[in-house]
């Protein structure tokens, strides 16, 4: 299988930039990173199709080895459509974040922060147990009745 070196290098650069960008905390950069990753992957799929060839339209006079492999292109088409939809959705979310919080950063989970700050001592589980825990009123059992029960 022969591959196009230029495409491979472009793919590598796209992956590197994409991974760098999704590690950022700014949402717009994360989105750009995801787009680069998706496009790098499309180039990778294109590379799996092998050498460039004729369009795969059947004619009797053409040698089967001269055709290009059409399947990777079908896969790329599908993945372009999917990443297009997801990008549009992400843009909507980012806009909404901006409208609600006036910032472009990924925010912390408040509940998670709260749980992380909780001390290991839990008042309900770890405090000293009081002497009387029963909810029922304690009634003194007469000693005579006790003895009677044991006999």
């Amino acid at each position, binding site marked *: 299988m022969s591959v196009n070196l230029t495409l491979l290098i472009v793919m590598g650069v796209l992956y590197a930039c994409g991974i760098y960008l999704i590690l950022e905390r700014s949402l717009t950069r994360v989105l750009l990173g*995801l787009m680069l990753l*998706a496009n790098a*992957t499309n180039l990778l799929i294109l*590379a799996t199709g092998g050498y460039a060839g004729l369009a795969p339209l059947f004619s009797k006079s053409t040698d089967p080895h001269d055709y290009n492999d059409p399947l990777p292109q079908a896969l790329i088409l599908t993945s372009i459509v999917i990443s297009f939809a*997801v990008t549009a959705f992400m843009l909507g*979310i*980012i806009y909404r974040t901006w409208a*609600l919080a006036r910032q472009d950063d990924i925010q912390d*989970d408040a509940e998670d922060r709260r749980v992380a700050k*909780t001390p290991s001592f839990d008042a309900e589980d770890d405090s000293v147990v009081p002497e009387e825990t029963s909810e029922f009123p304690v009634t003194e059992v007469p000693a005579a009745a006790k003895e009677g029960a044991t006999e």
Partner: protein
Amino acid sequence: MNIASLAPLAVVLPILGAALTFALNRNPRAQRVVSIGLLSLTLLLECWLLASVWTTGTASVTLGGWLPPFGVVMVVDQFSSLMLVVSSVVSLAVLVYATGQGMADGDSEAPVSIFHPTYLILVAGVSNAFLTGDLFNLYVGFEILLTASYVLMTLGGTGPRIRAGVTYVVVSVVSSVLFLIAIAMIYGATGTITMADLAVKLAGMDPGTRNLLHVMLLVAFGIKAAVFPLSFWLPDSYPTAPAPVTAVFAGLLTKVGVYAMVRTETLLFPGDTLNAPLMVVALLTMVVGILGAIAQSDIKRLLSFTLVSHIGYMVFGLAMSSVAGLAAAVFYVAHHITVQTSLFLVTGLIERRGGSSSMDRLGGLAKLSPLLALLFFIPAMNLAGIPPFSGFLGKLGLLQAGIALGTPLAITLVVGGVVTSLLTLLAVARVWNRAFWRKPEDAEYPDRVLKDTAGVGLLPRSMVGATAALVVFGVALTVFAGPLFHLANNSAEQMLDRTAYIHSVLGDNAHIPGTAAPSVQSGVQGSGK
């Protein structure tokens, strides 16, 4: 005509329903009738499929008339049809619950006209992922269900949901990109993406390349299934979504990841090359997940952590790659989908009745609403694995398989499984003690509604009914555990054998590579070069 050729309808009917409900977005009543009706029809069809596969064996359908190594196939075997039936039961119950909630609230809080179409698309994606026999179509199935889940996750567009949605979308997209890279590499290495054909062609490959492809697929599916080092997105994002949405995500989405892992391990890469790492991952998933659950004070977050933790049991069963282990894992998947979903639905009811899902604000619910207490208690004990419930039977099967395997690692996992089960009991008992058992006055910040005995009408009948139906279905899994275990055992045998699957797709003359031998043979070839 073979009934299995109707299998694509399990995907087509929900999509048709989505189109219809979208067109009917001005008329909520018609939307409800269409979506519930079509989903019931799908469920009936899937029960029929399961019955037909049970009697006549694995069947496949080629779509669009392209023959298998080139076109897309759908394969119905015992495992996939069982998953279809269980997932449809769960999604139908959640749909009825969500409809009840929408009717009670007057559809005011969220744009519910969008809910029905999106929900049906989600169901279609799940069915597609279970049915497909083509790796790229599996990717498409994942994308269908994920895109629908993005919309459901951020329904209403409130601050916390958007915050949680961002993390969820980014993590899901990264896992999809990884999956796509794996598909591209597999196509580059073998020239095919039909799973049955791959099962034949991957066997003779250089072990280095083979392991690379194997690990890439497992990492991509591991993010979706939320196994330990890749699970941190889940408890962060699930709890903020509306109750029915969290319930259906918890039941179905991670299990689709588990399903894909099962197919990877049994059909595409059989043998035991990665069993030891998978077992370690399973142990860490169980223990770290449940320790996270114990620290939480919010019921939804606690349940999200138990969800992560119990994925570990399924990975454990899968990693043993024995019939007993895989059968127990299949049984456990069916049990866990039902129980986890019903617990999340009950939490939705608790939130409604008690005004909050935080344990600091709840108390005295057992007295306030005994029915709610019963509905929580049964699946909670089921999840913790108290005999006689199905959770106990599933765990027992896993532990027996682990002991039968007998390696030190497997025994460690058996111990870890027992500890996790006890810690799960501790976690749900904490919820029971604090939310249901103690007096409302004892709560740290008691909610006003807890003292309001007039609020009995707060729980709409259809929501309680749907939850109760799912709890009863969970109990039915216990009552009919015998036949179900038989089915799980058969499907595990079929999956490890692979003959039925490959023959149904590629025809009866297809060559079946030996299950254990090829890695050794190609290892010799590799070192010879």
